[in-house]
């Protein structure tokens, strides 16, 4: 955009004015985003004595969390659960969201109200959602068991059993976030040219064909965003497992995820007693590389898929 300079607005004053506008944001970003991120990388090569770096440690921190027992066991156990969470959310949360979005696309009576309802849990804090579901899943008085009792199914300690704990937390997460992918996918579907859908229907395409062969490929950009955000969300997962299963990923580490393990390593806890900023930084760097690397690769692949349209 060409800016017509007037005489009263001299280049020097202009420069000062622009610098004044940019300075606060630039300062805050540098001090509280750029600097900490670069420091995280640097700190991962140091051993720590409390809160202060004690000496250069090379790759020792990385060796510990990746190779040395028991740290490496915790790392891979947590990583495995992150992968499970990601896959479960992709299939169940996004799958449900896709079908819901299609149902809402039909604009049946009440669809506006439904959009507001399905998105309501999204605005709630993970802390509220976590405690609410913890109470609903309570073995004694929880509504889930009480409902099952009505149909003659016995009580189960959902969060106390290693085989159901992670699944229960994932379900709570789906309830919490379902509205987000639903409305993003719906927005994608609503941008499809109406004539394309009409033409497909006139050609005799049923719902299944319409969904798989017309709508699915045409909403590729929305799907890309949902994939990426689901991935980032699953590998940053912390609040819900912390609230529902505690800092150690109980029972028996069956709900441990990288976010919990990282927090525990960096800031310790009354139960584990470990606090190691060096190891924590190494974990943060590894998580960052994982998240950024996979996101970058996935974006390339998914964008190519979009381009194939």
């Amino acid at each position: 955009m060409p800016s017509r300079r007037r005489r009263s607005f001299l280049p020097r004053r202009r420069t000062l004015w622009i610098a004044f506008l940019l300075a606060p944001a630039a300062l805050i970003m540098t001090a509280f985003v750029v600097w900490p991120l670069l420091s995280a990388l640097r700190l991962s090569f140091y051993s720590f004595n409390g809160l202060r770096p004690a000496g250069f440690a090379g790759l020792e921190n990385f060796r510990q969390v990746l190779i040395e027992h028991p740290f490496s066991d915790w790392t891979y156990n947590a990583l495995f659960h992150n992968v499970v969470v990601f896959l479960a959310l992709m299939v169940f949360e996004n799958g449900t969201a896709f079908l819901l979005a299609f149902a809402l696309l039909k604009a049946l009576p009440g669809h506006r109200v439904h959009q507001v309802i399905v998105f309501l849990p999204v605005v709630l804090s993970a802390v509220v959602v976590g405690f609410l579901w913890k109470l609903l899943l309570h073995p004694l008085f929880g509504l889930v068991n009480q409902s099952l009792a009505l149909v003659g199914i016995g009580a189960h300690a959902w969060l106390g059993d290693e085989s159901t704990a992670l699944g229960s937390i994932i379900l709570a997460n789906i309830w919490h976030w379902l509205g987000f992918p639903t409305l993003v996918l719906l927005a994608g579907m609503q941008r499809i040219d109406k004539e394309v859908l009409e033409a497909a229907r006139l050609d005799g395409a049923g719902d299944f064909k319409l969904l798989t062969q017309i709508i699915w490929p045409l909403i590729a950009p929305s799907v890309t965003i949902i994939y990426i955000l689901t991935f980032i969300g699953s590998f940053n997962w912390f609040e819900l497992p912390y609230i529902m299963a505690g800092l150690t990923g109980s029972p028996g580490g069956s709900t441990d995820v990288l976010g919990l393990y990282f927090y525990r390593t960096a800031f310790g806890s009354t139960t584990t007693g470990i606090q190691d900023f060096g190891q924590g930084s190494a974990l943060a760097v590894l998580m960052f590389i994982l998240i950024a690397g996979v996101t970058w690769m996935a974006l390339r692949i998914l964008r190519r898929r979009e381009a194939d349209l």
Partner: protein
Amino acid sequence: MTLADRDAATHGPPSARKRGFSLGDGAIQAVLVLNAFIMLYPLFVMLMSSFKTNAEIFTSPFALPRSLSPANIEKVWNETNFVRYLANSVGVTVASIAVIVVVGTMAAYAIARYEFRFSGAVLMFFLSGMTVPLKLAIIPLFIQLDTLHLIDTYAGLVLVYVAMGIPSAIFIMTGFLRSLPRELEESARLDGASEWRIMLYVMLPLARPALVIVAIQNAVPIWNDFFFPLILITSDDRKTLPQGLTVFMGEFTTNWGVLFTGLSLAALPITLVYIALSRHFIAGITQGAVK
């Protein structure tokens, strides 16, 4: 344009009259009703249980409460730090949003309305902040705030939130400010208005819709945040609501009615605001994903 507006613009009348929908609308409507029930029922239970006693919750879980006695609410209000947590959350959220809006708009205005060298690079610098999860930089952030004596202060928390919010605020504001017509600015300039006045009285009033998006987009995650206070705040009377809730839940592990009351009260403010402004909320939160 909000999601709902776009909805109104692109959605014709229900197209179900056209042949080809093999699933009946009735079946789909039934699925939607069931889904609405699944989304709302847990919240309904939470609200109802907050008026119940332990015995009632255990023996008649599906019944309405016997009375709408405010006993639990009084207990939460008077005997816990709940009100304090609530006030802290309001203060921290409002302060963070105010700084994000002012600082983000200033920077976006410079990038969008003036031509200067490296403006593209400056924009990229800010936008790069959108791609990094600041959670992973918590160790150096903690050390830095500790050095600045900002641990366990509202200011430390606000600075972190502002840093988190600036990139997307600049992204949204730059896009919007660029779309405003140049003529207005030029004519004000010919009238002798200063750059300051042009920004404040000519351009920014037009940018109100984008400002609302920025405010909501930041308000929700900041209001709900648990992670940063967990690490950066230690005194009980400086805790925010999500963080305070964990203390509170720990104190009343066996009084289930009081637990449900605490959850209901914590969920209430944002739920009410959401219901009043749902279009803006949905647009604010999905903005970025929906282009």
